[in-house]
């Protein structure tokens, strides 16, 4: 049985500043869960994209509603569940997240449409459902190494200490 680690529930207000505050709270915890920097930056990006999307589209006129996040790690999977009571996803499905074409003239370059591409490209088991008056979004992010609690296998001792 693989141990669950870093099980935490956080919530933030449904605004860009709320999302920023949640990430500022979460990110310093990840090294303690044994998550490498490379994976932590993916987690921060995907959480920012999903939460800002909710703040902007599920709560277009409300900045003081709440978005609830549940995060935990099992083996090499970082799991995310997000709940909110905002507007439903249009068509009750997630956007396809097709990458906008970068090979176009400067004036035609896309300024948006990257968010769902980034989310889809970095997650597994991405699921959305509308239940009652709430949105439920879940996904996982594969860690490059199974997260390990930090252990001091070797530590420095004072050079003049008696052996």
């Amino acid at each position, binding site marked *: 049985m693989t141990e669950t680690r870093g099980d935490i529930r956080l919530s933030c207000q449904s605004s*860009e*500043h709320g*999302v*920023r505050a949640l990430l500022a709270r979460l990110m310093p915890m990840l090294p303690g869960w044994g998550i490498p*920097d*490379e994976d932590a*930056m*993916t987690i*921060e*990006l995907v959480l*920012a*994209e999903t939460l*800002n999307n909710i*703040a*902007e589209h599920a709560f277009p006129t409300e900045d003081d509603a709440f978005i609830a996040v549940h995060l935990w790690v099992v083996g090499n999977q970082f799991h995310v569940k997000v709940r909110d009571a905002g507007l439903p996803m249009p068509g009750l499905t997630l956007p396809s997240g097709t*990458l*906008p074409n*970068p*090979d176009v003239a*400067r*004036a035609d*370059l*896309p*300024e*948006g449409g*990257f*968010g769902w*591409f*980034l989310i889809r*490209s*970095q997650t597994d088991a991405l699921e959305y459902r509308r239940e009652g008056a709430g949105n439920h979004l879940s996904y996982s992010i594969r860690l490059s190494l199974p997260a390990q609690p930090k252990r001091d296998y070797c530590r420095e001792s004072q050079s003049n200490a008696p052996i």
Partner: protein
Amino acid sequence: MELATKQSGGTVTVTVAQNRIDSAAAVTFKDAVKAAAQDAEDRVLLDLGAVDFVDSSGLGAIIAVMKTLPNDIRLDLASLRPPVEKVFRLTRMDSVFRIYPDLATAQADTTE
């Protein structure tokens, strides 16, 4: 948005002095860089060495800045930290900008 601007020849170097260009910062970033870049004659060099987070809104803001420049003025990027470089690579926007490892390399490159 904290920026430091330096003009040398036709190049305006804009150094971003804050660590996030995220959804909350994107609009002020765009307006501040646009204003700072006004005197550029052939090149704007955006120094992102202090920035350790860019999301899709921040990326969109950087692209929006480039789109407001006349076609003969380039927007080049320097000193991308790994999380920022990753966003450009994943979205293939690294093919749209000239990206330099540091400011010195960027300034030494005088190719058109």
